[in-house]
């Protein structure tokens, strides 16, 4: 009772707000968000973009699939240490069950919720963390008994343990080496954004959404197009004109079929895509900004 009251006091605000706004404390999950386009079906479709299904058998093999087919669950950069699975062996020992009961229970609840909603491996980090003490209790005796297991487990821990400081130092080094170009190198289409901000914003007062992050947009600068207006491109440009859109950012070649209605004002043959790889060079694509006639 005390715990529930404290939990409600610390975190209840968000759920109460959603009951007030949408009649659903966990909006837009389960029942959607009333009054918005996010109904239950749309939300389910978004959630299905991740993972490998929700069958009963799949519930038990998904922890393995996360490791061997990580791209379905957000990619390798988002996986936790699979050695934590050794903690599940603790369920076979009464002493471990007694000692770690709240941890096992909470991990099971987190995993079940994750399995039924968004299967992004990153979101399982807290559940994996809760299995870690029980996993250590099972692994350390094995590491002591067998030198081979000891070396393998030590490597499996030391290498990813060193990854965190290496990532931190590399990131800091890249920034310190040339702070003025850091965002161009590390975020998506930043050079294009910089150009548009300098040229278009000075003329029109603001620049609206690219497909890229990092530009906050006031509601007055947003616009909405119906899905039916997206293709063909003639119809799309007509919709842009109706909305008083003057410029268009696109991949090179994407609007060749309506080239006569557009004037190229900016080209970037190698616009960087940021946050795709960390240790390898970022991929790039040719981009262009058109003025709509």
């Amino acid at each position, binding site marked *: 009772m005390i715990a529930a009251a404290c939990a409600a006091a610390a975190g209840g605000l968000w759920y109460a707000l959603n009951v007030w706004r949408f009649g659903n404390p966990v909006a837009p999950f389960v029942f959607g968000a009333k009054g918005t386009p996010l109904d239950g079906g749309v939300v389910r479709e978004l959630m299905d*973009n991740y993972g490998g299904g929700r069958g009963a058998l799949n519930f038990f093999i998904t922890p393995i699939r996360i490791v061997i087919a990580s791209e379905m669950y957000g990619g390798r950069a988002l996986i936790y240490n699979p050695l934590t699975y050794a903690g599940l062996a603790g369920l076979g020992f009464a002493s471990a069950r007694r000692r770690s009961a709240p941890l096992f229970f909470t991990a099971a609840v987190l995993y079940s919720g994750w399995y039924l909603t968004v299967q992004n491996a990153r979101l399982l980090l807290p559940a994996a*963390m809760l299995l870690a003490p029980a996993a250590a209790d099972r692994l350390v005796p094995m590491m002591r008994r067998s030198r081979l297991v000891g070396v393998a487990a030590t490597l499996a821990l030391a290498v990813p343990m060193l990854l965190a400081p290496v990532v931190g130092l590399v990131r800091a080094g890249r920034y310190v080496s040339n702070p003025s170009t850091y965002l161009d190198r590390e975020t998506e289409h930043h050079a294009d954004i910089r150009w548009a901000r300098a040229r278009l914003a000075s003329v029109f007062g603001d620049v*609206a959404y690219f497909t890229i*992050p990092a530009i906050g947009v006031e509601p007055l*600068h947003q616009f909405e197009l119906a899905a039916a207006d997206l293709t063909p491109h003639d119809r799309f440009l007509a919709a842009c004109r109706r909305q008083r859109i003057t410029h268009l950012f696109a991949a090179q070649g994407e609007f060749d079929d309506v080239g006569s209605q557009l004037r190229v004002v900016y080209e970037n043959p190698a616009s960087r895509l940021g946050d795709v790889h960390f240790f390898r060079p970022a991929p790039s694509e040719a981009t262009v900004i058109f003025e709509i006639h």
Partner: protein
Amino acid sequence: MPRPRHRAAVPPAAEPPWTARITALIFICAAVACAGALAPVTDHDALSYVLPIARHIADAGALRVWSDQAPSMWPQGNQVLLAFVMKMGGDRLGALSAIEWLVAVGAISALARRVSERPEHVPVAIALAIAAPVAAFQVAAAKEDMLLLAATAAALFCLAGPRTAGEAAAAGLFAGIAAGVKYPGSRWPSWRGSRWPTAVTAAGTR
């Protein structure tokens, strides 16, 4: 008064000296990882919705659901902290998640000490919990994962301890913080999979 039932299995006197040294090395690794917070945030999800929502909160001084940010309808505990940092003039927002990361490592360490069978298992437990790509790349990402990790570890630390009213209250408090950071057990897609439609973008309005 409920009878205290401390489940700790780690008698301090039994701790071998190398345990402290390895634990110290893990904390050094964790601290060095924070160097990435020197740089501006570049994480795609953070730039797509975490920071824009925090900017909205900082500018408006209110909690709303903004039409350009559908994710603003779920718990925003971390974004409120980011908004506070923005309001104070801070521009190295990855430092917040780096601090949350250090708190998380401390909380995990305390939890491992409380529930591990033997003291020499503690550093291995900490390493198992945090030695992974997902942790390495989230340290300076300014996202909510590190705060969620810290609050979850702290709540379970209390739940696994003596059954006193104080521990129950603290467990509830930390569980509430975790719930205020992300929907517990039900998580949302990184916004990467649902970008805006094709090239409807760099547009000025006449």
